[in-house]
């Protein structure tokens, strides 16, 4: 049901709150890196023993996926009613 405004039910998070949660994320990222300095995972592959390998892989994957998605969208995007009038 669409209504005019519903401010008491939804409050947009303030810029301060957003910054604070972003800072929390940076701290969390840093915290996850700390133990890998002490614990050496003995995986099946040599490269997994590099400290922070998973962090690097995740970050690079995220960036690459976003960039690829931007490029792919340019190629495959069509208007919403693309399939409605096809001939």
């Amino acid at each position, binding site marked *: 049901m669409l209504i005019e405004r519903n401010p008491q039910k*939804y409050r947009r998070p303030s810029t301060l709150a957003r910054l604070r949660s972003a800072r929390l994320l940076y701290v969390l990222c840093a915290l996850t890196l700390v133990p890998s300095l002490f614990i050496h995972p003995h995986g099946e592959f040599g490269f997994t023993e590099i400290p922070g390998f998973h962090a690097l892989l*995740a970050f690079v994957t*995220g960036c690459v996926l976003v*960039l690829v998605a931007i490029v792919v969208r340019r190629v*495959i995007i069509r208007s919403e009613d693309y*399939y409605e009038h096809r001939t």
Partner: protein
Amino acid sequence: MPVWLNNPGMLLIVAGCVIPLLPYRLRMAVLLGAPIASLAWLWQIPLGTTTEMTLLQYTLTPLRVDGLAFTFGVIFNVAAFLSGLYMWHTHSRLEPAAALIYAGSALGAVLAGDLITLFMFWEVTAIASALLLVIRGLRDAMIVARRYLLVQIGSGLFLMGGAAIYIHATGDLTFGHLGLDAPGSWLILLAFGIKAAFPLLHNWLQDAYPSASPTGTVVLSAFTTKMAIYALARGYAGTDLLIPIGAVMTIFPIIYAMLANDLRRVLSYSLNVQLGFMVVAVGIGTELAINGAAAHAVTHILYKALLFMTIGAVLRQTGHVRATELGGLARQMPWTAAFCVIGAASISAFPLMAGFVSKSLILAAVAHEHWAGTWVTLTAASAGALLYVGIKIPYFAFFAPNDQIECEEPPLNMRIAMGLTAAACIALGLVPGLLYSILPYPVDYNPYTASHIITQLQLLAFSALAFWLAWRAGLYPRPKRAVHLDTDWVYRMLLPRFGYVAERVYHASVAKLGGGLSSLSETGMGRLRLRYDARGVMSRTWSTGWMVLWVAVLLAVYLVIYY
């Protein structure tokens, strides 16, 4: 009891056939009672049991319970129960019936011991699931259902062809390990591949699932694809070809999931990614890998059903399902939002959640067989899960800025169904032994080692960081009301257009050639008419005087000739 009825799957099918005739309360009792009874029945059948019956000159095996079939049978019954609870409030007579028949036929396919029984249940799943789409009665859903049925029946035809070749060549009906060298096995692999949504064969899934009713999608998401995974694990375990196929499946739908606007379509693409993990595991084919595939099917059915349930609840309560229209529902639907976050955490493989304990089995199996590239691909895909579904779904449905929607929590039965599914996700994550105890092979694996938890947390934290930085830079693709082309373009645009052009060419050529032909025939007809028409020379009415004169002339000619 006849042998063909002595099967937990047939119990569900019979219950589904009876359901439309019953009054509401009894209907719902059957809807929930049948999966429980079927699960209890399956549970007490000792592993290794088979039953046999003769049909024409073939000996069929309608029931075969072993480790692999047992795992899938258990989770299919659980899924049937949970989705039944989720649709408790609907007063439709046909939807519960279709759901039970669909679940029962999937269960029957999993328990089938021979190719002919498998084929029959394979086709029933296709028809029953298409019924779930048709029931909604919308024009678009009907068109989608037609496309869906075409693909599903096509898969059945390939299975029938492959099975016929195989049975003819070997004389053996048993559905066991086939491999790629068996006669007809490429056709059977194609049939399984269509239902398992292999790359380029996948698009029926993202086409159909977002078009079903909110309750129907939950049912659809559980059975067809996982039945195909079971069939692959049975027939093609250890087939190396499946490893690259699965690896591609884990990556390319991610892009589409990031772009899609319809949240149920996002979930359908992410379903495809998760199937990729299972296909890779089947391709590896060791005991650990098959355990991983089965375990991932179990947890994946649960958390994907949970996500579809929460988004279905949003759709039912607000009438919207697209990211561009949703947002800001967390305060109005706090329970649903919480369940959605649990499902999202589970699919992103947070430690203590179901996805973590099953995905790590697959990754361990891949690492153990030293497939380094595949391992990196799967790890990257599991990091990407946060980007395309783990953050995207809860954010756009519940937390994105939007003060335009007012709604309430969904009905109690929906909340209970979501709550039970969420509890199952957490329980399997906390006590992996529960999950590992129903797997096909004994498990000697502990997902909760310090290094594994740490690396997984790194994976999650840094992919969240990538998401956040991309979002703040405005690079993360915002949802748009648009169509993103996928392989369905071939049969929704290319082929119809091709057909249109062919039709035009046909008409034009008929007009040209036909014009020439008809003018030719017209001249001929005109000449004939000149002589034989009502007023033509040969059928003119002659006066008696003329006739007498002609007779006289003829006689004169005879006289002259013979004289």
